């Protein structure tokens, strides 16, 4: 059954500092009654779809860079900060200690050279709207000199603690979300990467 959802699906631009939606966002569907075995009315379905317009703010550079094959982290360069020099991945716009604006730095080479699995898990179950292939394998990744441990999805190879992994980037048709960067076991050939992804 077609709900007409694909037709003229809404997009959003920012014009003069304001969100400007265009196209179709809402596809009304009727409510339907919920009854028990005896046919007694107990409730009603409330279907609808909703599109949020979400700002990445100071993290936009991170999400923009993934599609260009770059992993951007951030670093506190405030010499008065007790943790100055700390590098954050996940990216933090501001230092969590001194709240100064962090410096954006490129850690792509560091990540390609030495990314180690701190922990992992494997699941066949997902929530609604999942787009990753099942089974999903999460890996938590330690980088040299980074004080935090990034979570990512491993899409080639079997995870184990201490294994070396390599980031891959959705340089074709990036979606500008975290899954534009996925992870593969060291030694995975370029020919074996998911469609649209490259080292």
């Amino acid at each position, binding site marked *: 059954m077609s709900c007409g959802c694909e037709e003229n699906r809404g997009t959003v631009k920012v014009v003069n500092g304001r969100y400007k939606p265009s196209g179709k966002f809402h596809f009304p569907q009727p409510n339907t009654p919920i009854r028990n075995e005896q046919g007694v009315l*107990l409730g009603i379905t409330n279907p609808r779809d909703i599109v949020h317009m979400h700002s990445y703010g100071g993290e936009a550079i991170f999400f923009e860079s993934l599609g260009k094959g770059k992993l951007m982290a951030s670093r506190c360069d405030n010499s008065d900060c007790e943790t100055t020099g700390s590098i954050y991945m996940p990216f933090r716009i501001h230092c969590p200690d001194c709240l100064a604006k962090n410096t954006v730095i490129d850690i792509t080479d560091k990540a390609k050279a030495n990314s180690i699995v701190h922990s992992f898990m494997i699941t066949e179950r997902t*929530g609604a709207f999942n787009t990753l292939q099942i089974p999903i394998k*999460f890996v*938590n990744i330690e980088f040299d000199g980074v004080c*935090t441990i990034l*979570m990512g999805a491993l899409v080639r190879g079997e995870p184990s603690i201490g294994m070396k992994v390599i980031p891959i980037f959705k340089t074709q048709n990036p979606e500008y979300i975290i899954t534009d960067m996925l992870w593969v076991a060291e030694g995975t050939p370029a020919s074996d990467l998911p469609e649209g992804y490259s080292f």
Partner: protein
Amino acid sequence: MITFSDKQLKSPKMQRPVYLVTGGMSKFARAFPDKRTEELVIDAMTEAAEFINMTPAQLKKYIHTCYYGHFADHFGDQLLGESVIHDRLGLDPLGNIGVKTGGATGGSTLWEAYKTVASGYSDCTLAMGWERMDEVPTDEGNNYISFAADKDWETPMGHIYTGYYAVMAQKYWQVFGKEEDSFRRTMAEIAVKNRGYARFNPHAQGPMKITVEDVLNSPTVAYPLLALDCCLMSVGAACGILADEKTAYEMTDNPLRIDIGAGSHTLRVADRRNMEIPLLPNETKDQYADLAQRFPGSDRYPGFTGFLAARVAAHYAYNMTGIKDPTEDMDLVELHDAFTISDIQTYEDIGIRPYGEGRTYVESGDCYHTNPNTGQPGKLPANLSGGLLGNMHSVGATGIMQVLEIGHHIWDRWAEMHGDEKKWAKFDRQKPEDWTDLQVKGAKRGLAISHAGVGSHVTCTILQHPDKILPGGMFE
């Protein structure tokens, strides 16, 4: 932050003692297609009134401020759901506010109600919590819960919260469990124990008479977590009524002293940075000097294996009440057993066992009502309610349920509240032939842990019989 100032770690000093006067719970179930949330909330409120021989109308006359905990507006598809409930409870014109701290919402709701009495703003407060998790299909429910992780960095990966948790389980199991089968069996034993205790609780959604093998043979949810390692998804409500001393003794003969501490840590487990282990009163720095040698891979604290928020909540609560050693000073506990592994982690965070040795709390039999190794009463029984594994995890109600369950033991009314045939019949549940009275004999003090997410918020609630207050607390 990875270092903490003296000002931040200062022991809370309340203006006056606070008492738990009464509380009540609804039935807990996976779904209530025939009940609105307000009906469940009124069930809980009515039980609270009856517990102290009042009518709901009489009880309401005492309440001065109301706190409402439910974790996710999404589930009920109703923003400001608190206001709907407040209206249906007929509690206008009292000031009221919603509380949201993920899985710890119940504990946090009590925390707010507690501070309001302690400050003198109110002489009597209501803490009411609930969750409506049945009005979306389970996969959408998992999707909503996953939005309590970071929506840009974590949620898009699978939309499955258990996965964000399982990585912690994996690390603990490898580092402190040393990947031993015996450790895996100890985890499973918790699932058997808590579901077994749930059989004697008429409110409980998930009672099961199972074996360790049943747990180990249950389907994988997120490796290494199996289905029977994971808690329930529930609907239901629970409330507590708190008051100052004078008001409490007007309302009942035997209110219980209540004190609550709260802590926090990063929402994303990814953001945890290394720090020194903050010590509890029963620990010394020396005892952890060789931790990384004894347990290779444990060189990060809290890393993925501990919960800083639980440790800090315990730090505050122990200092407020004079607890030196929870195993010695408490008679029973209710812990946030969202997963068997996090139950073990929490034993260490709150000082029941040192870091690395949580499993021994189970293996010694100390955590049982009756120690299976000795046949004697367990040293510190845990989760006799059935916990989140066997009783319920109706998120906003969970932390309140735990405190009431401890209270029933200290009030010496556990059998009355769990054995009453009329209650079993009202909930349309079969009281088991082998129903057992789990009353902890002579219980005077207990502790409850309410815990959110991968450890983002934790509250530590201490209940004490007023005749058995520990020395060294803030009012002693």
